[in-house]
């Protein structure tokens, strides 16, 4: 069964590249939804998240890889659109070095929020020792939802 929404457009891709506040919605083993506030990075046509390997969200997507990512601009006074996207998630090591480089390079602004050097170093270290993994969503469909002005 196809996910909701329409095939991804360049407008969707630009929005994904510009906004890092993402709510990752997964299906728990009991069939109920679970939403996680995350920092998402749009890289090479996919949405990537850094998370603990042993986290519940990793277990949930390993069981059912269908996810919804709701993308909400941090400053809705500038852009009040809200984008719902859908795709399949998987653990991917390909993005690990890119994330570490961004964190070690002081790219705290990439998160869209102030993150101290100490916290960035801790996350980079946990990516290096594989306590943290990169969860990548191949986004296939999207739509601006009625919660934002784009609906």
């Amino acid at each position, binding site marked *: *069964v*196809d*996910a*909701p*929404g329409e095939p991804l457009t360049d407008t969707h891709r630009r929005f994904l590249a510009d906004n890092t506040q993402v*709510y990752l*919605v*997964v*299906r728990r083993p009991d*069939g*109920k*939804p*679970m*939403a*996680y*506030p995350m920092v998402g990075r749009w890289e090479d046509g996919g949405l990537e998240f850094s998370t603990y390997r042993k986290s519940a969200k990793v277990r949930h997507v390993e069981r059912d890889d*269908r*996810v*919804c990512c*709701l993308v*909400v601009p*941090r400053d809705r006074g500038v852009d009040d659109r*809200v984008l*719902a996207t*859908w795709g399949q998630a998987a653990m991917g090591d390909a993005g690990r070095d890119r994330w570490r480089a961004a964190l070690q390079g002081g790219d705290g602004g990439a998160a869209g*929020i*102030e*993150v*101290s050097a*100490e*916290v960035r170093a801790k996350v980079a270290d946990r990516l290096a020792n594989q306590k943290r993994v990169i969860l990548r969503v191949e986004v296939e469909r999207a*739509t601006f*939802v*009625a*919660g*934002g002005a784009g*609906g």
Partner: protein
Amino acid sequence: LRVVPVAERPNIAMTDSEVRALLARAGEVVVAAIAPSGWPVATLAPARLDAARLAIDVAADDPLADSLVDDAAVCCVADEGASYLDIKGVIARGSVAGVETDGALRRVDVRIEHVVSFDFGKLPEARDT
């Protein structure tokens, strides 16, 4: 000297009154459900806290709307914070306890059954700043 087990994590949960205050001032929450197709769906919607319930308004043409039927499981998120140590959030799971259609809106009553909260300002490193 206090030996801290590796698995021990600091308790950064918010108090009940902090949770209520955040939900009350949020104004909008992320609402998530599972569509009949099996795919997760979500939107951002105006919400009001009323005791142990959230009253949520969802546009009738939102992809989420048809999933919000009586007893459907939902998950709502409210969070805030402009810097890492200011981040606070509430993840409230529950079920739909009534739906009314009002023109182009669905007014959905969500019974809150389980809450997870976090306040990064309660992390040990926040005390050092």
